[in-house]
C-alpha cells in the first residue's frame, strides 16, 4: 500500500502535515508525537527579526472552533536556523518553513536566509488576518499576490507554497494568480476573520478585537474552497481547516488536495496528527486501495 505523495518533486511519506502556527517548531509536541511519523512539519511563521505578537487575550473559544490573534509572535530567522531547524532535522520528516513579513523585502530576506539551509519547502504566509500591515494585504488582491509570488520564486532555492486566505470574494482568482506567478503549490485555507463579544463585560474578548477562526466549524468552507481551487489550477494543493479525524482528512483529499494539515485540533488532541495518519491507512486497507493517489480528487 502506498501512502507517499509528491509535491513539486518533494516526496512525503504520507500526506499528513501540521498546519503552521499550531505545532510550534515541532519541539513542543515532541513529547506526544513521533515526528518521524509525519509527512511534514510546517513551522510557525518565521520573520526576518523577532516579532512580539499581539497583546492578550489572544485566544477565544467559539462554538466548534476558536479565534486566535497571536499576531505571528516568533523568535526570528536567526533563532530558527540556530535552534529550531537542527532540532527538526534530527527527524525523518520533511520540513516546511512558513515565512511571514510586513513588506516584500522582509519576506525576501527570510527566503534568502533559508536558501542555504536544508529545509524542504517554503510556505509563504500572505494570509494572516491578525497582523495589521503587509501580510494579508499581499493575499487579498490577485495582483499583489502575483507580485509577491514571482519575487519569492526568483529568490527561493526551495519549492514555494503560497498559503491562501479564505477572506476573499473568489479564492480561485487567488489560486490562479499564484499559479500564474510560478508557485509550486498552494495551501488553504488560513483562518477566517471572526469576532467574539463578551456580553457580560460588553467588550471584545480578544485584545485585537478580531481574530482568525479555526477548528471544525470552518471545515465545510475549507473543503469547498479546496475543491474549487482543485478545479481551477493544476498545481498541487495542501488542504486544511478543522481537520480532526482521518475522515475529515479524506474529505480534503477527495476534494483534490494532495496533502492535508492538522491545525487547531492539535490543541484539542495532541495526538491528532498520528491518529489522522493511521486512520487514513486503515481506510485504504478497509477499501482495498493500493495507492493513496487513487483517491486524490476522486470526487469531481
Amino acid at each position, binding site marked *: 500500500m502506498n501512502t507517499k505523495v509528491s509535491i513539486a518533486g518533494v516526496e512525503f511519506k504520507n500526506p499528513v502535515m501540521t498546519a503552521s*502556527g*499550531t*505545532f*510550534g517548531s515541532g519541539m*513542543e*509536541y515532541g*513529547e*506526544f508525537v513521533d515526528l518521524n511519523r509525519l509527512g511534514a512539519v510546517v513551522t*510557525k511563521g518565521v520573520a526576518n527579526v*523577532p*516579532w*512580539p*505578537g499581539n497583546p*492578550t*487575550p*489572544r*485566544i*477565544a*473559544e467559539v*462554538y*466548534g*472552533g*476558536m479565534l*486566535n490573534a*497571536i499576531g505571528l*509572535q516568533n*523568535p*526570528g530567522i536567526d*533563532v530558527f536556523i540556530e535552534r529550531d531547524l537542527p532540532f527538526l532535522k534530527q527527524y525523518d520528516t520533511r520540513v516546511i518553513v512558513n515565512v511571514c513579513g510586513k513588506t516584500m523585502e522582509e519576506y525576501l530576506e527570510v527566503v534568502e536566509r533559508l536558501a542555504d539551509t536544508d529545509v524542504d519547502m517554503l510556505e509563504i504566509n500572505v494570509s494572516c488576518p491578525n497582523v495589521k500591515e503587509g501580510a494579508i494585504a499581499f493575499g487579498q488582491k490577485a495582483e499583489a499576490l502575483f507580485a509577491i509570488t514571482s519575487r519569492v520564486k526568483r529568490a527561493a532555492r526551495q519549492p514555494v507554497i503560497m498559503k491562501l486566505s479564505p477572506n476573499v470574494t473568489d479564492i480561485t482568482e487567488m489560486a490562479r494568480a499564484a499559479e500564474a506567478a510560478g508557485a509550486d503549490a498552494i495551501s488553504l485555507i488560513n483562518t477566517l476573520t471572526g469576532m467574539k463579544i463578551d456580553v457580560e463585560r460588553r467588550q471584545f474578548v480578544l485584545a485585537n478585537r478580531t481574530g482568525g477562526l479555526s*477548528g*471544525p466549524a470552518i471545515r465545510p468552507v475549507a473543503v469547498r474552497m479546496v475543491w474549487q481551487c482543485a478545479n481551477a489550477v493544476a498545481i498541487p494543493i495542501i488542504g486544511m481547516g478543522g481537520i480532526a479525524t482521518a475522515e475529515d482528512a479524506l474529505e480534503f483529499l477527495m476534494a483534490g488536495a494532495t496533502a492535508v494539515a492538522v491545525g*487547531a*485540533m*492539535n*490543541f*484539542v488532541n*495532541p495526538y491528532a496528527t498520528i491518529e489522522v495518519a493511521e486512520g487514513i491507512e486503515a481506510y485504504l486497507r478497509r477499501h482495498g486501495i493500493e495507492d493513496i493517489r487513487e483517491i486524490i480528487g476522486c470526487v469531481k
Partner: protein
Amino acid sequence: MRQTSLAEGIYDLWIRTDLAAEARCGQFVAVYPKDKSTLLPRPISICETDRQEGALRLVYRVAGKGTAEFSRLKAGDSVQILGVLGNGFPVEKAKPGMNAVLLGGGIGVPPILELAKSLSCRKQIVAGYRDGNCFLREDLQRAACADLPGTEAAKGSAFWIATEDGSVGTRGNVMGAVAQNDLRPDILYACGPLPMLRAVKRYAEEKGIPAYLSLEERMACGVGACLGCVCRTVAVDAHSHVHHARICTDGPVFEAREVDI
C-alpha cells in the same frame, strides 16, 4: 471520585489519576469537556494532591460551558485530562527560618492549599474572598497550623481572611489584611486576580523581598505551542526572544520582578 459544591459556582472535584504521583503545588491540569462544541481543554490548578490514593483535588469556578459540564461530574464518571502542566511554586526558595506569606484571592485560593502543605518553613496564609463564602477555609486553617504548637495564640497568627464586603476578617483585599495584621514576610507566594498580583508585586518591590506570582490567561494548547497565553516579561525571554513568556510552560509561576503585569 467525588464532587461537592463549596459555595455558589465553586466546585470541589477529586479525580483518581496516575498524575498524582508527579504533581507539584502550583502546577495545573488541562481538563477536556466532552461536548465537542467546546473544543479546548480548561486549565485548572491543583488544589491538593493525595499521593497515597493517587488522586488530585481540583477546586474551580464555573465560568462557562466547559466548567458547567464538569460541575455535573459524579462519582464513577471519567474525564479526560492532560498534565501535569506548568512549573509550579518554587518551594525551595523558602529557606528554613524564613517566614513565608501565602496569598490567595478568589479562585486563586485553591493552589495555596497544596503550597502550604509543601512548605516546611514558618508560614502565614491570607485568603481573600468576595463575600462570606470562604471556601477551603478549614483546609487552609489546618494546613497553616499543621506544624504549630497547639496553642490558640500560635494558631491565631497563621491564617487570615479578607473579604471585599467585610463580612469576614479584614474588609478589603489580601494586602489590606497583611497590613492590618502586621505580617512580616521574608518571601511571598500569590495566586489571584491581576489587580491583586500587581499589588503583591508592588509590595514585594517596596520591601525588597522575593515574590512568586501564579498568573493565568486564556490558553489553547497548554504545551507551549500556540503562544496564546503569554505574559509580558521585563527581560527578553530566552525561548521567544521577545518580551513574552508562555504562562503554560514557562510559568504559570513567575518571580514578580521578571514580569511586567
